[in-house]
């Protein structure tokens, strides 16, 4: 942690200033129950991430890897313990006004389509609220914009859908409404936390393809948080793999899945269902993720790692180059000199 000298910024490499950049975000949740005061959950540890426009960055990890916390940190819903956010290169302020301005640039689409819309309100209400908050549109213009947004997420005809209530919609339609609400603020950045994991298999691709279109047509920077590495590969430009609150590997999507360098990424890939795999998969590693209250020393993956070395237990590996635009935080990738130095 402390040894990470230079923060490597993960995310798609593009020219210019990224739409949203996170610098060394750390989040420790304090424990509140009796007898645990003073201890913290190390949910996100020193993550730097750049989200350039017109790109999709996938954050992949198991539950408890800190990927959802990272997405919420990026919305500003929760305050980081340390680190900062930069929107178009300038730091994001904390005043109520700046906070509100930020909400018009960054939106979050959540996992559960059955709870992301308020059953008490119509679809129209859901789309109009952000428009009223962040634009000057009123009256007929407001209605026209609402319909347009619904149709932009393929809910045709928009006027019909506007009048419906959430319980009249299918899961996929609800998720599209949630995305349309996100678009209504006119965001630069769309964060999606497991947006398809609760949808039927046959309609997941439709929603993923919608994200792909929005990246192109709306110049959006999209963060796609998922546990499904295959869908990350399908949609994203860059995959960032998180484990126990830390980024363990990042790089171009196909590169990560075709030649994973970090043992954890290899484990994830070996566990993922893959019908094209000829023989039964050999699981690379065992055990389950560690407690984030008392994370393992050194590399947090070392207790499960089939290649663990003494150094892994002692020191946190820095992100090391593992290919073109690919980095992995693993001592296996350390040049021999460094390893020798650490051994000596």
């Amino acid at each position: 942690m402390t040894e990470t000298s230079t923060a490597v910024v993960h995310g798609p490499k593009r020219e210019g200033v990224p739409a949203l950049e996170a610098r060394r975000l750390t989040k420790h949740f304090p424990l509140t129950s009796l007898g645990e005061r003073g201890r913290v959950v190390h949910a996100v540890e020193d993550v730097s991430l750049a989200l350039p426009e017109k790109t999709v960055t996938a954050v992949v990890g198991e539950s408890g890897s800190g990927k959802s916390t990272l997405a919420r940190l990026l919305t500003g819903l929760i305050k980081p313990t340390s680190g900062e956010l930069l929107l178009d290169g300038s730091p994001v302020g904390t005043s109520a006004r700046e906070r509100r301005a930020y909400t018009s640039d960054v939106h979050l689409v959540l996992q559960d389509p059955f709870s992301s819309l308020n059953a008490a309100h119509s679809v129209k209400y859901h789309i109009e609220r952000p428009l009223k908050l962040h634009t000057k549109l009123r009256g007929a213009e407001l209605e026209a914009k609402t319909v347009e947004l619904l149709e932009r997420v393929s809910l045709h005809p928009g006027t019909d859908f506007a009048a419906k209530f959430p319980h009249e919609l299918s899961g996929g339609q609800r998720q599209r409404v949630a995305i349309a609400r996100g678009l209504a603020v006119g965001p630069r950045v769309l964060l999606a936390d497991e947006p398809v994991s609760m949808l039927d298999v046959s309609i997941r691709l439709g929603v993923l393809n919608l994200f792909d279109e929005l990246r192109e047509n709306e110049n959006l920077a999209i963060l796609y948080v998922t546990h499904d590495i295959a869908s990350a590969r399908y949609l994203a430009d860059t995959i960032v793999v998180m484990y126990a609150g830390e980024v363990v590997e990042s790089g171009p999507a196909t590169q990560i899945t075709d030649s994973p360098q970090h043992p954890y990424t290899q484990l994830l890939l070996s566990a993922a269902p893959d019908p094209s795999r000829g023989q039964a998969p050999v699981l690379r590693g065992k055990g389950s993720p560690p407690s984030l209250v008392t994370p393992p020393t050194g590399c947090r993956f070392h207790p499960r790692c089939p290649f663990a070395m003494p150094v892994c237990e002692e020191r946190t590996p820095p992100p090391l180059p593992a290919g073109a635009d690919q980095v992995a935080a693993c001592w296996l990738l350390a040049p021999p000199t460094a390893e020798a130095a650490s051994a000596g």
Partner: protein
Amino acid sequence: MTSLDPALAAAAADPAPQLEPAAPRHSRTRRHRPPAKVLVGGAITLFFVLMALFGPLLAPHSASWVANTTNGTPQAPTGSLWLGTDNMQHDLFSLLLIGSRSTLLIAFLAGAIATVLSVAVGVTAGYVGGVADEILSALSNIFLALPGLLILMVIISPLPVPDKGNSFVIGLVVAITSWAYGARALRAQTLALRGQDYVVSARVIGERRIRIILFEIVPNLLPIVAASFIFTVIYGLGVYVALCYLGVVSPSSGSWGTMLQGAQSNSAIGNGWWWWYLPPALAVALVGLGLALLNFGIDEIINPRIRSARTGRGGVKFQLGLTPVVRAAAREGDAR
């Protein structure tokens, strides 16, 4: 007196997300018609509300009217005096009509004030959380543990007479001892709603906290607010009638409780003057019943699972772990 249903609290605490919502355990379409309980309960309640509104106007006699007799014993009901008279020869039917107003007014007033209090406390505690929650929760728990009625007796009895007759003061005092039940249920439900994705989404689009509470959370609390309102009205009714019955409060306009107090202090039961105490007692019981039926209905709307299943629906007996088999032939036989 009724108590807030634990199943309701459980439903509030566990809005179990159904991964496979397909199996229609309870279809929405059947919800359109309100349960019979709501209809009956609503009708009873409406009847008494109308009585409270218009009864005093329709009463054949005023509260101070006395039957033209020098008799010192109560008269049994007759064709002209439907419910007979008390020992002072007041017309009990008129007293019943007139007394309905103050009785229901205070019950509903207490319910309304207590509901406002419980929404304010419960939703604040649930949504804001942290220290505010700790303090407000401890406060409501203490109020739950205190014997409200006894404290009311002590607080109200030494009040100056004008205050004792003031509906608002009485309603307020009753409300102060009864808001905690609703607050607890509302806090639990708010806590459950606070983490819902639509609340998070509202924060993400930049809604202000007060708007989130009022427009995102409160609409979804309405069934529980309604349930806790009815609960406190029942409670207020009981407490107010009790206070009148004990003679702690004696409203000048009279109430059902005052009638019972008169009957009690004149040993009406021992003397067999049933027409004196039976009508007000039944009236209180009926209002309570009507409200309780309404609350039953609301509970079933909040948690459709608890709906009372009709026995042998379609001749099929459902039993956990033994799915019934009804062959098509048998069903056709039914159709014929």
